[in-house]
Structures are given as structure tokens and as C-alpha cells.
């Protein structure tokens, strides 16, 4: 019974003498692990693949059993239809999403790294109390304030404009928290001190020492922020629906409303709006993984 207690590779309950007291991450994965992971990947990727299949199909292909599982040849036709729909503003919506996500990302990176630096390396009265405030607000679901946010935006006259979507995203508590952690761990105090002795101002220290040192963290936070902003739906729907300036998510939901929804169109639009994120995952996947995993250990 007590032969080689293997690792809890849940699902693969195989006794592997190789494991003998070794930490799981040092134990080479067996065939069973690879198989189960492959199945997991299949489940993760299939809806995306199938989105493409529907986006390339004609109406007949979608109304038969068994369902189509290979892409059709109508992708460009469907895409053309999406772009030419008058009241959906799909092309403009992609530009809007790009504007909103870029501005929000740039702003989060700048303001959060600035505040993170101050909390990590500068001494000032009330620092700990203010940082505690940031941490407490991490878990506050702002979504619950949307009714009031709508009223505030109404007073400012911003409802229905991109400003209404951009403004609430400009800073995040998570960003400050993440940046502070990173700076505490990577920027040595001595470096900051010696720059000070040489007469560098705080902003100079930020620009010349901190920024170069936190590039990896900026990449992580930037990717996570961009993805989240691009995908945001509830608030943009509330403030932008029915206007001429939807974000792409709002435009897709417009495509999908009406008495008779044409799914090959909807999913052609959805596919186009997903591709930029897939590209980002392909290029920056390593950073995104790192960001998520680092966030986990710290919290």
C-alpha cells in the first residue's frame, strides 16, 4: 500500500516510483498528464475555433445536423455585411475600443507606477494609512456604483461619449498595489539614495531609475489592463448604447439584438474583435501568465 506515494496529479492516479518524495514540479509529467492537459486545451480552444467556423459559414450550414465543424468559405462575405450595417458602426467601434483601451492603459501605467513608487520608496506622513486604503478598495466592486456613476456622468455631460468610458478606468487600486510590490522588490534603496545624494529630484529618480527597472511589470499590468478594458461590457452598454460611438463590445451586442439575429454575422464581428486579444496573448502570453501568477502569491 505504501509504494511510492506519487503526487496528486488529480485524475491520473498512477503510482510512479519516480516521484518518491520529489516535489511535483520536479517530477516529469507522464503520458496521462499530457493527455488530460491536451483535452483541457481542446475544451479551452474549441469555442474560439467554432466561433470562426460560424463566422465563415452560410445560413444553410448553420441549420443542419450534425453541425458544421469545418470552416466555410464565406468569411469575407460575412465580414463585409458586418461592416456595411448602417446603424451598428462596427468599423468605428473598433477604433473606439482601441482609443479607450490605449488611453486607459497608458494612464493606468503612468499614474499607478507613480503612486506605486511613492508608496514603495518615499517617506511621507500618512503613507501606511493611505496604502491600507488602497488595499481595502481592491475588493470593492465598483460595478455596484453604476447608477450613481451614470448620474455623475450626466452632470458632467459625458454620458454617451467615450469620456464616460475612459474616466472611470484611468486608475486602478490593483495597479498601485501591483506596482508598489514590484518596486519594493526590484529597486534597491541604495540606488535611490545615491541618486538623491547626487541631487536628482524625485521625478528624476522615477524617470531614470524606477521606470527602466519596472519595465517587465509595466508590460504585465499593461496587457492585463488592455484586455480588461477592451472586454468591458456593462458600463459601456449603459452609457454608450444607442449612440453613434459604441465600443466594439456594445456594437456586437447591437448586432445580436433584434427580432431575427443572424449569427454568422454576429460571430464574424465577435471574431474580429477577439483577434487583437489573441494576438496579444500570442505575443505577450508569458507576461500575462506571470502577472496572474505573481498577483496570486502576493495576495
Amino acid at each position, binding site marked *: 500500500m505504501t509504494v511510492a506515494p506519487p503526487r496528486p496529479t488529480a485524475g491520473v*492516479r498512477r503510482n510512479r516510483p519516480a516521484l518518491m518524495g520529489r516535489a511535483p514540479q520536479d517530477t516529469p*509529467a507522464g503520458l496521462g498528464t499530457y493527455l488530460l492537459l491536451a483535452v483541457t486545451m481542446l475544451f479551452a480552444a474549441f*469555442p474560439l475555433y467554432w466561433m470562426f467556423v460560424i463566422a465563415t459559414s452560410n445560413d444553410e450550414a448553420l441549420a443542419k445536423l450534425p453541425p458544421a465543424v469545418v470552416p466555410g468559405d464565406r468569411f469575407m462575405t460575412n465580414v463585409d455585411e458586418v461592416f456595411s450595417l448602417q446603424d451598428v458602426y462596427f468599423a468605428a467601434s473598433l477604433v473606439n475600443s482601441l482609443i479607450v483601451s490605449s488611453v486607459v492603459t497608458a494612464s493606468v501605467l503612468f499614474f499607478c507606477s*507613480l*503612486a506605486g513608487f511613492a508608496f514603495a520608496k518615499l517617506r511621507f506622513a500618512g503613507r501606511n494609512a493611505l496604502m491600507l486604503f488602497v488595499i481595502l478598495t481592491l475588493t470593492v466592486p465598483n460595478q*455596484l*456604483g453604476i447608477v*450613481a456613476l451614470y448620474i455623475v456622468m450626466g452632470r458632467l455631460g459625458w454620458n454617451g461619449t467615450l469620456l464616460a468610458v475612459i474616466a472611470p478606468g484611468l486608475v486602478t487600486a490593483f495597479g498601485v498595489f501591483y506596482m508598489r510590490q514590484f518596486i519594493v522588490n526590484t529597486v534597491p534603496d541604495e540606488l535611490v539614495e545615491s541618486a538623491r545624494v547626487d541631487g536628482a529630484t524625485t521625478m528624476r529618480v522615477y524617470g531614470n531609475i524606477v521606470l527602466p527597472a519596472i519595465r517587465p511589470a509595466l508590460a504585465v499590468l499593461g496587457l492585463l489592463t488592455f484586455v480588461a478594458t477592451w472586454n468591458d461590457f456593462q458600463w459601456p452598454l449603459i452609457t454608450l448604447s444607442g449612440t453613434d460611438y459604441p465600443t466594439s463590445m456594445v456594437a456586437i451586442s447591437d448586432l445580436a439584438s433584434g427580432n431575427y439575429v443572424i449569427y454568422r454575422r454576429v460571430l464574424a464581428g465577435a471574431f474580429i474583435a477577439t483577434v487583437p486579444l489573441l494576438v496579444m496573448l500570442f505575443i505577450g502570453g508569458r507576461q500575462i*501568465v506571470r502577472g496572474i501568477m505573481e498577483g496570486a502569491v502576493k495576495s
Partner: protein
Amino acid sequence: MSTTRAAPAQSRRRAAPGRGGSGPDERRLNWRNRLYRFDMRYMPYLMIAPFFLLFIVFGLFPLVFNGVVSLRNYRLDDPTLPYWAGFENFTRLAGDEDFWNALYNTFGIFLLSSVPQLLLALVVASLLNRKLRAQTWWRVGILLPYVTPIVASSMVFSVFFSRDFGMANWVLGLFGYGSPEAPIDWRADKPHSWTAIATMVNWKWIGYNALLYLAAMQSIPRDVYEAAAIDGAGPWKQLWKITVPMIQPVIVFTVVLSTIGGLQLFTEPMLFDPNAQAATGGPNGEWQTIAQLIYKVGWKDLNLGYAAAMSWALFLIILVVAGVNTLLTNRLSGGRK
């Protein structure tokens, strides 16, 4: 580093409080002095100010102001009502069938999505927690659902769960469940619609949570496993007796996260409805969640005061449930003997 070299030459003279007046230009030194003092004393506040200003105006204030609005008559279509409503919105809430129905739906979908989500994430994490070839690619691949817009994936799943020619029905048919003559209508009742929506949520978040667990698993000290080997704990036992208690803080964290997210579920139930703009969550509110009801009350019925009251109720519910879940998770994952 080279950065210090880049500092302007005169600044080497040490702008520190030293008022020795050694320089030829006393006034400039004074000015530098003042700049230095300003820099040390006020710059930190200037640096954190943008965050606090923006966060308070667009994050915190709405949350508080929401409380004020909930005590008011705030109808976009009828501005003639008296300004204050007192607790009218809240008393109305208590007797509102739609609200209780939405609460019931929200909890149902939440349970169906969070429990399998976290358990499967645990399984996937322990699969990933091996020495793998192409390790990064597995981890990145598992994030495909995470980067996919919920709007997009909800539309895919909407087609997947359609009654006629839906892939879900076809696959189930292969296993002898349902038939093409009497296809399952996933939008006809609570159990089916809840399952469909929970599937979307599970698909989206399993990989993300798995990475959180994986990170925690890899920071378990290695000698713990040596001890386990000597004790002869089997794999299943090891998972529950060692790994889970060791990563307990992260498990609690994910439980809180999925509680906060799950109880505010909006996009999936919205887009599961072919008539999404109505925000009714099915012809008879089969899967209308609270977030959806808030949207409907506020922006379809134009009663912002009442919607604000609902938001507050939801806030309190989230607080309570998150607290209870934290306690429960602590008991289940750590207290096990």
C-alpha cells in the same frame, strides 16, 4: 548606474540642507534648497494625488452617492415626484417578486458555476504542476478563455445551446440524451438555462484560477513532499491533506473573487437571451440575475432610485456571502483532520 552620471553638474554640489553657502551664487542655492524641500515634503503627495482624485471621483463617490440616490425618487421619466423617498425603495424591494426571483437565479447560477470552476481549476493546476515540456505554452493556452471577450464567448455559447441545430443537443443526442424530434430547449426553464450560463462562466475562469493555484502550489516548500513520501500518503490524499491546506490562502482568495464576480453576473445572462435588449432574462425571468434586473429597472424602466436601492442590497448580499464563504472555505480546506 549611469543615471547618476546624467545628473547636471551643479547638482553634485549637494542640494541637501547644507547651507554652507560655498557657491558663488547664494540665491541659486537658496532656490535649489527650497526646491529640494518641496521635492522631499510635497512631491510624494503630488505623485499619489492623481490616483486618489480619480479613484474618489469615479469610484468611491458613486458608491456612496448610490446610497443617497437609493433614498430618493429618481425617475428619469417623471421628475415631478417628491425629492426624498425615505425607505420606500427598500420596502418595495422586500415585496418585489422580480427581485427575489433574480436573487434565486443569481445564487443558482453562482453555485453551478463557482463550485465546479474551482474544483476543476484545482485539478488543472495539479496537472500543470509537473515538469512539462513546452511549459509556457500550456500555461498560455489555458488562458485562451480568459482573454476572449465575454461578449464574444457568450454569443458562441448562445449558438451552442440553441434548441434547433444546437451543438450541445447534438452531442447529448450522441449519448442518448434528448432527440432531434424533441430537442432540449435550453431557454425554457431554470435548470437548463442556469446550466448553460454556468457553463460559460466555468469555461471562462477555470484556466485563470488554475494559474492562481499553480503559483501557490509551486511555492510549497519541497521538503513537505519528502515528509509525505515517508508517511506514504496516496495521490488523492496528498492533494487534500497537503496541497489544499498549504495553498489555503489562495483558495480563500479565489472563493472571494468568484463570489464577488459571480453575484454580479451580467454579460452572460444578458446575451444568452435572443432578445437581449429587454434584459428580462427569458420570457418569464428564468435566468434573470440581479445585475440584469438592476440594468432593467434603471435603464429600461428608468427608475434609477429603485435601481440604486437594489445595488445597495446586492452590495450587502455580496459582503455577507463573501464572509460566509470565507469561513466555510477556511473550515473545509484547512480544518480537515
